């Protein structure tokens, strides 16, 4: 059999393939675009009805709030990409904030960098526990981290009792760090950006990052490809925990008052930000950029509703609606992509 002619057209085919690819890319980028547009519309509407919304202070508030939520969301995205979930982040944030607050109260000389590292270490330890339980316990992450959510919160309550650490007990240097800016940008935002960029680059451009996507995309295939799925799982939870711990320190620096309830309920905001940001809950796709954009959108919605003097209740309803919208959009895009991929069967064209 001489078969060469059948595929002689492959060279001619390439240019069309390239243009079709870019249109597919556009569909996949649609999420980020959608969020940016939604943000622009939201800001425009709010600013028109109340120009105060664009004042320096209000923008600062939004950015600081976003910084904390985004750090958490980046960690959550790493875990969700591996087809897991970490519900304990709010509690870990609380524990880390209280630990660092106590240490700073007792040792006012502690440098900020050390405080950040200690927070991350506390969180990292909690995350590693999550990872080990998920890996060896053979229990779904949802259940494990729901458990540690309560356990970690319980530990914090037990330790703190009713006491609260107030701003006047914390060293001024630390509180300054929460407010100070560098070239006009708050330190908190800079830290969040740093975390975002590093994680984003690792996930996109390093083997390690791609292996996390591979695991989420098909755990079975990942095992067959020789990826040490167990180690990576523990690592992903470790990162999420460490970032939650870091966020705890940022939280302490921003608000100055810390009690055992710090960060209660944050996990839901974080998961919402990640889902709205286009990280698929079944793993394998999405990016930390999307997650961070999701955090920005959610925080902005909170502020603008306050500015517009709309009832808090509506905020929750709107966030809920957004999540449903995001999931609906995911389905739609997935169906579109599937159809376009089917049409592009390699041999038929």
């Amino acid at each position, binding site marked *: 059999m001489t*078969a060469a002619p059948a595929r002689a057209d492959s060279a001619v085919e390439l240019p069309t393939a390239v243009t079709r690819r870019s249109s597919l890319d556009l569909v996949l980028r649609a999420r980020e675009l959608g969020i940016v547009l939604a943000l622009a519309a939201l800001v425009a509407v709010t600013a028109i009805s109340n120009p105060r919304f664009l004042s320096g202070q209000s923008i600062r508030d939004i950015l600081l709030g976003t910084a904390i939520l985004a750090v958490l969301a980046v960690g959550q995205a790493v875990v969700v990409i591996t087809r897991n979930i970490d519900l304990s982040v709010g509690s870990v944030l609380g524990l880390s904030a209280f630990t660092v607050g106590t240490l700073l109260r007792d040792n006012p000389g502690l440098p900020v960098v050390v405080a950040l590292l200690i927070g991350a270490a506390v969180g990292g330890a909690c995350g590693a526990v999550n990872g080990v339980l998920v890996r060896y316990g053979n229990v779904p992450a949802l259940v494990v981290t729901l458990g540690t959510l309560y356990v970690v919160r319980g530990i914090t309550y037990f330790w703190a009792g009713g006491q609260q650490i107030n701003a006047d007990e914390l060293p001024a240097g630390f509180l300054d760090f929460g407010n100070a800016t560098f070239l006009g940008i708050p330190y908190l935002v800079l830290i969040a950006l740093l975390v975002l960029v590093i994680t984003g680059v690792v996930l996109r451009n390093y083997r390690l990052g*791609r292996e996390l996507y591979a695991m989420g995309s098909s755990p079975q295939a990942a095992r067959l490809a*020789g*990826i040490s799925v167990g180690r990576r799982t523990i690592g992903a939870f470790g990162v999420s925990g460490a970032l939650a711990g870091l966020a705890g320190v940022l939280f302490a620096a921003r608000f100055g008052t810390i009690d055992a309830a710090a960060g209660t309920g944050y996990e839901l905001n974080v998961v919402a930000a990640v889902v709205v940001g286009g990280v698929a809950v079944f793993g394998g796709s999405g990016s930390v950029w999307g997650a961070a954009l999701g955090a920005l959108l959610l925080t902005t919605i909170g502020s603008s509703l306050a500015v517009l003097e709309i009832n808090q209740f509506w905020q929750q309803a709107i966030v809920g609606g957004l999540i449903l919208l995001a999931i609906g959009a995911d389905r739609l895009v997935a169906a579109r992509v599937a159809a376009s991929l089917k*049409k592009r069967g390699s041999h*038929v064209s």
Partner: protein
Amino acid sequence: MPTEAPVLRVRAVSKSFGAVAAVQGVSFDLYGGEAHALVGENGAGKSTIVKMLAGVHRPDAGTLELDGVPIELNTPADAKAAGIAVIYQEPTLFPDLSVAENIAMGRQPLGRFKTIDRTAMIEQAEQLFTRLGVSIEPSRPARGLSIADQQLVEIAKALSADARVVVMDEPTAALTGVEVERLFAVARSLRDHGAALVFISHRFEEVTALCERVTIMRDGRHVSTDLVSEVSVDEMVRRMVGRELGALFPKQEVTPGAVVLSVAGLTRDPVFVDVSFEVRAGEIVALAGLVGSGRSEVVQSIFGVDPRDAGTVTVAGKTLKPASPRAAMAAGVALVPEDRRQQGLVMELSIERNVTLPRSRALSQLGFLTGSNERRSAKEWTQRLKTKYGRLQDEVGTLSGGNQQKVVLAKWLATAPKVLIVDEPTRGIDVGTKAEVHRLMSSLAAEGVAVLMVSSELPEVLGMADRVLVMREGRLVAELDRERATEESVMFAAMGQEATV
């Protein structure tokens, strides 16, 4: 030239899963520069051996020796490091990642600061595809690839590993003649560069075309290892099944009845365009063509799993609602899909649940599924197809590849359809059962069922079909009746004018 000393020795390995002894004391040697075939019936233990070579399963007993040194392969990473590349029977791709990334996973070319060099990665994939003579776009996600393309990506993945031992578990099951030829050309060049190949297939012409040596297994045991030139195909079959086999294509003559399935102007641009044909009661009509000519897409659109742009499908005079498998099933259409993992089976469910899935409603009494009914009909059909399993309650995922295919068949045959559409019905099925499947299809046709069959195996098409429809690039290009359908005429139509056969 084969090496003097074996590269890899498999020495008396055994592996059991619970009560099932999948492999018992099997030994054979692999030489560099030689292709070694592994043949045996469905469930004989071939894939289990493959998985031991791949580090997925650890042998319960026995050893593997690489260059005369015993090695332990505890994880797939160990096997990779030892220079063993494996193509698994079921494609194991990452649907969300690009094809190029799928191929390069774990070995991505690195650039500055150890970052992945995407351009090089895509180039590498393109080169591999050129070598294999296929045009899959490296930057598209693996999701949505046809089963044949998935197989080709798997092959490219194994090639890229530069391995000393390349193990291929039924790599050709989803491919047609042309792709198989290309794969063999590449495999031969690997072999000539000194790699040891393990090749598994249920098609003996492939074994004799590619391999120098053949190991035959039966029921988990080693039967013989010989030079291919020294055993005849009949002898291989005899050793494999342990008995004489009857004629391979027992086609019953049937006088076709009324038109049952009629397809008019079916179009889904650009996959297939203006496809029209009819199938009568009692007739077996084959859709032939190269991989990717649109055959599977046409039958999926008839059944309604895929949408269509235009055209009508009529079953026994009633027009089917488009894109509704439910309506198709209600009208008496059954589709045995080509991709059993994604469309045919629920891997986590038991065998009996899988077999009875499409009929749950009919089997239920007062809305409850009753175990005994379910079990009885599952038992009947799996036995007719000689399915090898431990208990009917076992997960389908633990069956051997060929036995999974039998469960898919059983599931649809049990619905007593008016129109039976089968896509690659005997993919991965051993010779003995293949004859049984053919006999079943033939007797169903004799009972008045209209059968539409997509098959890449020419002997099967020529042996079974009353009429052969040939597709090329999404169009029906020829209709050949039984007398005029020959290997030449079908291939000629499938490949177009340029090709010579």
